């Protein structure tokens, strides 16, 4: 199992004739079981094809050609045209939009997210590399060419969520090298406003039986980590979370922007140290180094399994204990 996408997921690529989009299309077609890219859209290029994928002028034409609803779209058009492209996708019934484009003003992102909400659709990104289910499908440039993606991503029990596209691969590769594969890895984007945050992906991973732990990559700026900490505190999640925080040096340089558009320390609550404290309070382990993550994750999964087994045994022998599932065992030591 996986979240967001699986081998049946159909999608289009908007801006498919651009240089990077042509590569991305090849990569997705080649990876895993082969992505079902049912069309591409570039205005004025109707009738062409990109690696065998038919190109249309409009999303409506792509949907008509496909003969039924299309699930997703990867949007790779320039920033000034992204909002229009995403609106077009949403108004033509697309439910999952991965926005690769960077440098989109927040006002546009907010509009896209708001419309997506009204259309019961989901946006991943902007400024992201997309979604990958190891050995099954990738939607977006994540992991690069199929051959390279296969070196970093392997199937397994860890859900990966990252504000940095490159670090999604770096962290997954480290997990894979230690024998810990990924259920789904999602590059959520590094901007100040993004379509889907850590906390918004958690219920999806929670519902995925294959996922046993979550690893997140995080940065200073914004309040998304506080939102995740709150989610963890308020929901009795079965999933241990291990985080890595980059950009600790930025605490000394308020008002300066490094890395992604969203990484700028604006207040006292969005510094690296403040976020680390907040995550730790919620029982989320913050690793000092990426190389420590696989060990921590393995321990957490093992502890969780032992607890589950113990809880199950107790439940069989004592009905009074079974009536309060989790109970004192629910708290996570870290």
């Amino acid at each position, binding site marked *: 199992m996986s979240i967001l996408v699986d081998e049946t997921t159909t999608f289009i690529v908007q801006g498919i004739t651009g240089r990077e989009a042509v590569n991305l299309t090849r990569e997705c077609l080649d990876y895993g079981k082969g992505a079902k890219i049912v069309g591409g859209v570039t205005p004025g290029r109707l009738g062409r094809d990109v690696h065998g994928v038919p190109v249309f002028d409009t999303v409506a034409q792509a949907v008509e050609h496909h003969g039924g609803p299309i699930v997703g779209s990867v949007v790779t058009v320039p920033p000034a045209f992204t909002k229009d492209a995403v609106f077009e996708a949403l108004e033509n019934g697309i439910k999952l939009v991965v926005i690769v484009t960077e440098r989109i*003003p*927040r006002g546009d992102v*907010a509009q896209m997210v708001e419309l997506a909400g009204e259309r019961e659709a989901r946006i991943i990104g902007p400024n992201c590399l997309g979604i990958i289910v190891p050995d099954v499908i990738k939607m977006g440039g994540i992991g690069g060419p199929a051959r390279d993606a296969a070196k970093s991503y392997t199937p397994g029990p860890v859900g990966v969520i990252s504000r940095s596209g490159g670090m999604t691969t770096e962290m997954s590769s480290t997990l894979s090298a230690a024998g810990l594969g990924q259920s789904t890895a999602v590059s959520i984007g590094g901007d100040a406003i993004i379509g889907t*945050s850590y906390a918004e992906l958690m219920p999806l991973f929670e519902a995925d039986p294959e996922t046993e732990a979550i690893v997140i*990559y995080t940065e200073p700026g914004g309040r998304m980590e506080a939102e995740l900490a709150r989610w963890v505190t308020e929901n009795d999640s079965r999933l241990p979370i291990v985080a890595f925080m*980059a950009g600790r040096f930025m605490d000394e340089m308020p008002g300066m922007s490094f*890395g992604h558009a969203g990484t700028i320390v604006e*207040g006292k609550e969005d510094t690296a140290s403040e976020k680390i404290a907040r995550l730790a309070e919620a029982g989320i382990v913050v690793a000092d180094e990426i190389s420590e993550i696989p060990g921590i994750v393995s321990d957490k999964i093992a502890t969780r399994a032992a607890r589950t087994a113990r809880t199950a045994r107790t439940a069989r022998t004592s009905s009074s204990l079974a009536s309060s599932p989790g109970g004192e065992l629910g708290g996570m030591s870290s």
Partner: protein
Amino acid sequence: MRLFEYESRAIVAKAGIPVTKHGFAKTAIEAREIAEEIAGPVVIKSQVLTGGRMKAGGVQFADTPEEAAKHAEHILELEIGGHMPRGVLVDSRAEVKHEYYAGVVWDGIRKRPVMLFSDMGGIDIEEVAEEHPDHVARGHFSTIRPFSDWQAKQVIASLGITGTSLNRLTPILAKLARLFLDYDMTLAEINPLGELEGGAFVALDAHMDMENEARPRQHAILRELGVGDEETRQAREATPFELAGEAVDAQDHRGVAGNVTEFDGNLGLVIGAGGGSLTLFDAVRAHGGRPANYCEIGGNPSVRKACGLAKLVLQKPGVDRIAVMMSIVSNTRVDIVARGVIKACIELGYDPAEKIAIFRIPGAWEEEGFKILEKYGVDYADRSVSLSGAAKRAVEKIGE
């Protein structure tokens, strides 16, 4: 991008929000002329992109044009928090009965803009929110439906404000909400928003931040304000080294090799991408290294650009060696970066094996890249060496 107070006021006034009579002066003579025109008591305010003006003596009161000129002369020479002022704002001193706060910011969690309004103006809104939460009203609003005045009215009325005050404040907050979206602001605040003796409301100070990503489409207003494309308006002005980094990146449109920030260490960094750079910069410092710079490579830059960036860093005074490191690349090609940095060393007359402390970029085209590095005897690492491990190796070599 932060705007100066005089620019923020111009935007507020353009939106139809009343402001006190004021002018922007770059010299003491200009300040005197504005004070003469105002013909009454004035306040002289330093125009710097930093807080703490009042404490630093950057805000002075004057009763006569002569006094205004004297204060302006002093303030124009006064450095505040490392910034020299752009000029001074000469503002008429209003008889204020009560101070309010009106602001609009983004809420990254709700993903919508939010209006903030308080009847306790003149002080930091975060402070008010913490100590007097019942004096701060909030209201999120849509970005796809046109803004309607009742939304502003509802926020203000929730503080118990009624009568003429409510009816006069409503259009001010509504205009602020509209200009926030129209001009792609990330912050738009009027603080204090003064209620005058006669019951009229005026903006006594304004603070605006415009989103950098939106600058291309906000050209018209920026031109009107006289803001040039070259003004970065970061927390500190760009150094010549940083400007040279921008020039490298602007050579062509293929990928990124720039975003340079200067530090005063001895280990030059040629690192990427966004998250990788943050991770690597932390790692170098964690192992006791002193980075000479921060930078970013990504999006598959040309050999020329990678070479230009490496040359820039290598030539920085005090740089002993460079470390070329990235998180696993899938788009940027390892061999292209390898060729770029080796070329930089050779063209500057250095031995790449000596000058490149470590090359750790695994990923696309790594076999080709590693072959080139081997040929020149450069110490390199593949993905089996962590980012932190690579940083450690580089720091150790600097210590040798």
